[in-house]
């Protein structure tokens, strides 16, 4: 089986996020990138599948600061091959990303067939224009399920049986033929730890491949007017008054946020 995992770097929210001068993008001076959490799970799931069913795992990522380390770590975790797509991809959104990833297949002449399984993190925190996985599935003509929390293959390894998370612990089981693009929410097991020494030695012994993809012009009908930091962040708004008044206010807030219904 050929498992492909597409990785995406997102701004690290541990660092303070500031708005850039144009008011429409993040201030890159303070930005630090990290691997999107669900992508880490997608990678883990891929390695688990490889351990279970054999095959190879290829990880592909767009160039970004600190992406090399992520790719080396992926190899340390069990990926067979790591690929970087060079370029300046800052601010690129899902429809365009999916095109890039799809062009990786055509450029490398990887056949997409009944052996191909593509895993991508279900959703990233900056997916303003949607998730990559369904777009990629559309372009490649592959089947898709999102919010996946577990994957099995049938006996012939032609179909994937996947668990999709609905809500409150309720899940559904779906079956779909390969090739498939799956949006992984959580791997069966939490992503494994790789000791620093292992990553360091991989860095010395392995090389990251690069594949030159050309950015395709995508004209989005969506325009960002401004980015801003919500005012609520900071200290709590205090609600005062006798219990009845406080209770009424709490309920108003909960109703406002769609948490309780009448």
């Amino acid at each position, binding site marked *: 089986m050929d498992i492909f995992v597409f990785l995406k770097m997102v701004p690290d929210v541990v660092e303070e996020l500031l708005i850039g001068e144009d008011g429409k993008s993040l201030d890159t001076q303070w930005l630090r990138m990290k691997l999107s959490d669900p992508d880490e799970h997608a990678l883990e799931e891929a390695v688990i599948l490889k351990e279970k069913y054999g095959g190879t795992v290829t990880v592909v990522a767009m160039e970004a600061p600190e992406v090399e380390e992520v790719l080396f770590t992926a190899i340390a975790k069990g990926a067979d091959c790591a690929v970087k797509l060079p370029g300046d991809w800052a601010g690129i959104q899902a429809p365009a990303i999916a095109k890039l990833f799809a062009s990786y297949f055509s450029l490398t002449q990887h056949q997409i067939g009944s052996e191909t399984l593509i895993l991508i993190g279900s959703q990233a925190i900056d997916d303003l224009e949607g998730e990559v996985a369904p777009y990629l599935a559309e372009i490649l003509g592959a089947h898709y399920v999102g919010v996946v929390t577990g994957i099995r293959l049938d006996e012939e390894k032609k179909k994937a049986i996947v668990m999709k998370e*609905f809500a409150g612990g309720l899940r559904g*089981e779906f079956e779909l033929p390969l090739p498939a693009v799956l949006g992984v929410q959580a791997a069966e097991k939490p992503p494994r730890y790789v000791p620093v020494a292992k990553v360091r030695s991989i860095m010395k012994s392995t090389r990251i491949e690069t594949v030159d993809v050309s950015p395709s012009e995508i004209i989005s009908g969506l325009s960002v007017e401004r980015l801003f930091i919500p005012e609520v962040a900071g200290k709590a708004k205090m609600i005062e008054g006798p219990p009845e008044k406080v209770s009424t206010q709490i309920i108003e807030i909960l109703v406002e946020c769609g948490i309780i219904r009448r």
Partner: protein
Amino acid sequence: MQGPILILAEHLRGDIASLTFEMLGIGRKLADDMKVPLHSVIFGKDVAPLASQLGVSDSVFVLNHPQLDMPSSEVVAALLKTLFEQKNVSLVLIGGTNVSTGIGPKLSFRLNLPFVNFCRNIRVKDGLVSFTSQLFGGKILSDVRLQENRGVVSVYPGSFPIDAGKSDRKPSIEMLDLPLEETKVIFKKYLEPEAGDIDITKQDVLVSVGRGIANADNIALVNELADALGGALCASRPVIDQGWLPLSRQVGKSGMTVKPKLYLSLGVSGAPEHVEGMKDSGLIVAINTDPNAPIFGISHYGICADLFDIVPTLIEEIKTHKSE
């Protein structure tokens, strides 16, 4: 915006999702502002009876088919595309939930229209619609616009009031007869949450108790509150240590990391080890007698009061609120 607004009604196991009412509410307002009709559509097996609850929309389209029991996103996207074109729709609202994932991007790809994710607010100004999306887990908000106000929008749950989406009005119901695309993504079965204690990481509403609860007898009271809110109880470590709640309910560094929509904290001081496990919750409301309790530093709303004064009244009010 010329065409109508279409809402994809979301439902799970025979219940309309509350997010559907949120969408109906904001959709109504938007439609009125823009002077366009508001439609909703519901797909599924045995969903006809649910249509009557969608009275806020001008008309409801229903497609009832055994094959539509938990249809895959490609099937729904195909149906929506047909409907979009047939009804000359401008804007589609879809729930930003797990149930509906993938539908939006697929539809937008097929329609070649933009898609707005994580939408928390929609406003109209001078005939232009502006959508506010939350990015980075709510750390940043982004105002976006759509060309000709046309596109697909995914609504973030818990963003709009539910009440505005409810009405006793009987909508006009149109039974659809659309061809179903053959799909190879087949829904097999539901997998019930594993037996044993509930998984607090999967709850939308958590009521969290700390040492302010004083003793085990008071657990019943807060439990009643959690029930009334349709959520579950969780706790700080000392409460778990006492054995008042099982270990699976511990929030924090040595317990679970949770991200519910509502985290209602009662008598929790907000020690760093605790905060680590809940700081990313959607809405944090804290009740504590100590005005300087660190929990207020990370809450959205704070109430400096005795939890035993507030909780009983709160339970009462929620109950009356619900029965209204």
